């Protein structure tokens, strides 16, 4: 589904991603871990197409299409979803109006007619219950005055509504208490299927107790320096990140 080859990118003259290689197939959950500043969130941003980053090398294919050639909205319409680490507030725009606009834009891209009002309401209710998102928040202005936890839960609600092929969760666990973490993880687990895939970016192993990954990758200094299964996350939890930072990579 997603194929990243030797991806290099940075901001201004500072190189941040220094050759990322990653293959993600449908039905898989990949966790990307790593110390602060290793490039985890940058990878998410580059895949989603944030313009502050300049891609300087490598290639990314998404379902056989050149992802890096597409504008941000087309990547989304192709089925790539980013759950933001810091979701923005948009005053005066209701959550529901925003979601309907987004959904219809995506449908138009796929040459489907706009969703009818009744069906949209039904879908909203179903997904809101599925991911345990407070019905009151559905009609409020987009993220305006939401708590940190509510914003993150709204990201998962949107994920449920838009049904992307590939979802990238960028430190969705940061700032969540244990209950919110459980709700968010449950939501994601319910949405997992053999047709979609997830990339879960996290600093801590904690989240991976709830969302069990198929693969774990350690990102350090702009490269994936180690890959393994969920046991790798446990090892990292126990030993910290220092042992992977050692000799072989200090020359870069």
């Amino acid at each position: 589904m997603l194929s990243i080859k030797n991806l290099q990118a940075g901001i201004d003259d500072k190189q941040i991603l220094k050759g990322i290689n990653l293959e993600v197939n449908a039905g898989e959950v990949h966790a990307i871990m790593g110390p602060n500043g290793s490039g985890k969130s940058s990878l998410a941003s580059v895949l989603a197409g944030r313009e502050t980053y300049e891609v300087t090398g490598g290639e990314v294919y998404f379902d056989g299409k050149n992802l890096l050639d597409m504008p941000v909205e087309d990547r989304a319409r192709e089925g790539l979803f980013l759950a933001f680490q810091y979701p923005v507030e948009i005053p005066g725009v209701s959550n529901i109006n925003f979601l309907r606009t987004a959904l219809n834009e995506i449908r138009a891209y796929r040459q489907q007619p706009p969703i009818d009002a009744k069906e949209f309401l039904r879908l909203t209710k179903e997904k809101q219950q599925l991911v345990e998102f407070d019905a009151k928040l559905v009609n409020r202005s987009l993220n305006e005055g939401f708590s940190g936890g509510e914003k993150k839960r709204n990201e998962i609600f949107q994920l449920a509504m838009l049904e992307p092929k590939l979802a990238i969760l960028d430190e969705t666990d940061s700032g969540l208490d244990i209950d919110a973490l459980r709700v968010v993880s449950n939501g994601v687990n319910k949405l997992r299927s053999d047709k979609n895939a997830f990339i879960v970016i996290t600093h801590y192993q904690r989240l991976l107790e709830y969302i069990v990954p198929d693969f774990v990758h350690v990102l350090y200094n702009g490269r994936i320096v180690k890959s393994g299964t969920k046991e790798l996350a446990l090892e990292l939890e126990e030993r910290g990140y220092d042992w992977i930072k050692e000799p072989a990579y200090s020359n870069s």
Partner: protein
Amino acid sequence: MENNNSNEILDDYIDKEYEFGFVTDIEMEVAPKGLSEETIHYISAKKEEPEWLKEWRLKAYQSFLKQPEPHWQNFELPNVDFQAISYYAAPKSGAKYKSLDEVDPALLETFEKLGIPLSEQKLLAGVAVDAVFDSVSVATTFKETLKEQGIIFCSISEAVKEHPELVKKYLGSVVPYSDNLYASLNAAVFSDGSFVYIPKGVRCPMELSTYFRINTQNTGQFERTLIIADEGSYVSYLEGCTAPKRDENQLHAAVVELIALENAEIKYSTVQNWYPGDKDGKGGIYNFVTKRGVCKGANAKISWTQVETGSAITWKYPSVILQGDNSSGEFYSVAVTRNKQVADTGTKMFHIGKNTRSRIISKGISAGEGQNTYRGLVQVGTRAENARNFTQCDSLLIGDRCGAHTFPYIESKNNTAMIEHEATTSKIGEDQLFYLNQRGIETEKAVALIVNGYAREVLNQLPMEFAVEAQKLLSISLEGSVG
């Protein structure tokens, strides 16, 4: 990177065409250019006016001659050559129409093209329209239906003839002919506009609306609107306006007077879309307007809502004189400036009676090289016990070449007054756009979504039939402007 990109998109957007820029080809009777007592005699004669009105015009003209140009505004006043303007232009086929059948089809077609069909079958249900083309009113719809309830809705020229006692009593009672340079000019040369009278206790059953169209070259439009809501009555009134694209600037100096007697309510909404000029600031309408209402009796209410997207320069302060005890005034405004447009707008609330309340919500949006100024005055007099005001004044910037300015004035002579002022300035953030893009929404739609969200509190005040139109207009006028 943000700048490069936004400039590129801004450039695209700048090329967007003004939708209503066409010219109607119709034979017109146009007064010779220039302003003098002769001009006033000419207009007065054309309109077969009574002597008192001509005298009033002449006094206004004298007042106009004595006033210096104002200098306090937050833009450079363009040099308007009053002698280069023609002060009267009317379709030749005759300025008086008894029924729609007599109206030149080219005129009907013009309004149809503007989305204002004048035949009653095609009209929006529940909206009566007075259509003003250059200097004359072309048609007023639903007149008869309204008459059944004693409501008078007609052109001001007709009101002068049919209801002189009302016109004589109220014309100039809120905005005197000596009020300011442009109000004096208007009083001297006004040609047409709407007149509304709602009798005691009547709730006007439909929206009343006037549509103003400037068509002829080298003319100015000087319309005069007078709305009187008698005791316990209610009326909602809306005006819309457009003009052809022309390279020269055209002057639009209107005066609107509202009179709300005891327990009466007037809701006045404006969707202003005069031609704004091109991307280099060439052409466009100078929209210099004096709008003022008075809550004459106790518990009266006047509410101004304006969506200002057009004009090269918009300069107006729809105000309310809160004379009656417990009366209230509201001002809701969205003003958009882009390219080289300028807006210097806001309101004045004069608290005179006891327990008077006012509420001001102003939302400025600046894009391109647009300059947007909010200027407001809240004045509380010595008798105005327990006066209350709330002002919220927000500015939204799109791009980095535009400007937003605020000049709030507060004068209180009564220590029981409570006056609140809130202000914010924000920019459409790259983060907001990226977020919406990432959900599959393209940038233009994203900007429209953000702007409409920002302006929602004001748009919600518009009559339902027009809220959607205004929302579309906002989206269109900001297409492609990104910061």
